[in-house]
């Protein structure tokens, strides 16, 4: 009976190990709240952590406050969401206070915080990163891939290997924190963009941002519903594309990947990990299953891993690479 004995903190047989390490930071589980979802306030971030998330990301902030686009900005079109929030945010000077407060609330829960930032220029990214750095987030994520600002800001940096590398390198100069670069699926070769940001100093990759942009037209009104006309597509409809992107990126780089796009349940999360993701972003699923979705996905992961006999996530990472 000696073998049945377990020591405190020891993982008992049959309890799958969901912990992961991302750039030297330990996550109690791989689920990450994706940027732009519920990331507007410190208490809300803490609530998501309490619901089970292993890491949380703030709503992307930029150099100055932005109103964002007028409504309608977010729609559920049946197979996913489409949004053109337009990076509404209070500006970095205000955001650092939220980040600092969120850090205080998250520390006791041992849930790391990712500060997501954006800017219209390479220099702008460095300026925002430098300010955000002072609030001591665990990671800085560069959103170079928002698809619904093209009219205003031009083609996203993530659509060009050179631009993506320049943004990454400029932020690398101003911070020693791990940098996550968030890539766009709206390119012909996402692996080459991943390779170029790895070269420029990225510590991890988040993929994917929303797909598109797309458009939904109301046939009674005879016009696009989103005030911005176009918006980024997310949710279940984009999952196969997100999985393929993660699969391609895993082959191209050494740095870890946060696989994001359409993950709604435990099965989807394991699928991302098998494609090569170290951690798994969850966004639109909050629409379908509430802020409690994180705890629910974890339970499903545990149950599925137990029933198949998988012991840990580390042993599953990238196993679909054939």
């Amino acid at each position: 009976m000696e073998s049945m004995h377990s020591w405190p903190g020891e993982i008992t047989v049959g309890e799958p190990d969901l912990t992961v390490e991302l750039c030297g930071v330990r996550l109690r589980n791989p689920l990450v709240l994706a940027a732009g979802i519920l990331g507007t306030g410190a208490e809300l971030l803490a609530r998501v952590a309490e619901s089970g998330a292993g890491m949380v990301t703030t709503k992307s902030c930029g150099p100055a406050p932005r109103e964002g686009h007028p409504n309608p900005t977010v729609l559920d079109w049946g197979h996913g969401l489409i949004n053109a929030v337009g990076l509404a945010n209070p500006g970095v000077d205000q955001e650092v206070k939220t980040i600092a407060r969120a850090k205080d609330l998250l520390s006791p829960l041992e849930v790391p915080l990712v500060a997501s930032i954006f800017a219209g220029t390479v220099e702008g990214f460095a300026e925002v990163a430098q300010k955000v750095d002072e609030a001591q987030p665990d990671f800085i994520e560069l959103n170079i891939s928002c698809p619904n600002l093209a009219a205003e800001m031009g083609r996203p940096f993530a659509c060009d290997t050179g631009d993506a590398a320049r943004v990454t390198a400029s932020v690398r100069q101003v911070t020693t924190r791990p940098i996550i670069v968030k890539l766009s699926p709206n390119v012909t070769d996402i692996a080459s963009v991943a390779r170029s940001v790895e070269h420029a100093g990225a510590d991890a990759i988040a993929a994917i941002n929303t797909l598109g942009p797309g458009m939904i037209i109301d046939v009674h009104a005879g016009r696009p519903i989103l005030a911005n006309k176009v918006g980024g597509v997310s949710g279940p409809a984009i999952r196969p594309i997100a999985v393929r992107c993660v699969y391609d990126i895993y082959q191209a780089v050494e740095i870890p990947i946060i696989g994001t796009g359409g993950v709604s349940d435990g099965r989807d999360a394991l699928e991302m990990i098998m494609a090569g993701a170290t951690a798994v972003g969850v966004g639109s699923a909050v629409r379908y299953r509430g802020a409690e979705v994180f705890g629910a996905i974890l339970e499903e992961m545990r149950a599925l891993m137990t029933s198949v006999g998988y012991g840990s996530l580390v042993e599953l990472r990238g196993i679909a690479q054939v």
Partner: protein
Amino acid sequence: MLPRPMTIARIDQPTRKVKALTLHGRLPAQPGQFVMVWMPGLNEKPFSLVDDDPVTLAVASVGPFSARLHELEVGDRLWLRGPFGHGFDIVGEYALLVGGGYGVAPLAFLASRTIGARRKVAVIGAATGDELFFEHRLAGAGCEVVLVTEDCSAGEGGVCTDVAERLLQDETFDVVYGCGPEGMLETLEQLCSELGIPGQLSKEAYMRCAMGICGSCERDGLLICRDGPVFPVGPGT
């Protein structure tokens, strides 16, 4: 759930500032829930339901969007997404309903659904008598209606929370339902805590998605659009 077009069947104007729009069609909902109203080319904003069958809205003209809604005519269309949020939980035998401004809108819906209650008293307040509305709707739904005006031009003088306080102290109520301006809700919340009576208050915030993902409507970690707009207050909260 995309916005769905609905045609205006009837327009009533109970006060100079408020119009009630009755639409063709139904949208099964719980009292206290709201819809996002889209006017193509203009904007999309939240409105409480006054009824779900037929769909009815009460619109106070206070700015550009609501003013445009006031210009619509019978036969014109509106686009509605919803219903959204957590509405009023119907509980108790003795209910006090307190409404300020267009806060009366969801209370009228609530009153029509609290058919099991033994007694319902509705206290509705406004600055002046001309601004009071839906007293007949509330009475028709079985409420004893108490009118309150700040300028004493109709009913009792004062604000509706003064009357609510007196009623709560003098009589027995199982539950307080409230909707209206922020100050009024704060006072009601205080009363519920002090007197140990469970309350349910409907709150407001700027909304985008209305489905609990964008975080625009967050207040202290709660999402007004999904956790609310109706929140419990008083004992045990």
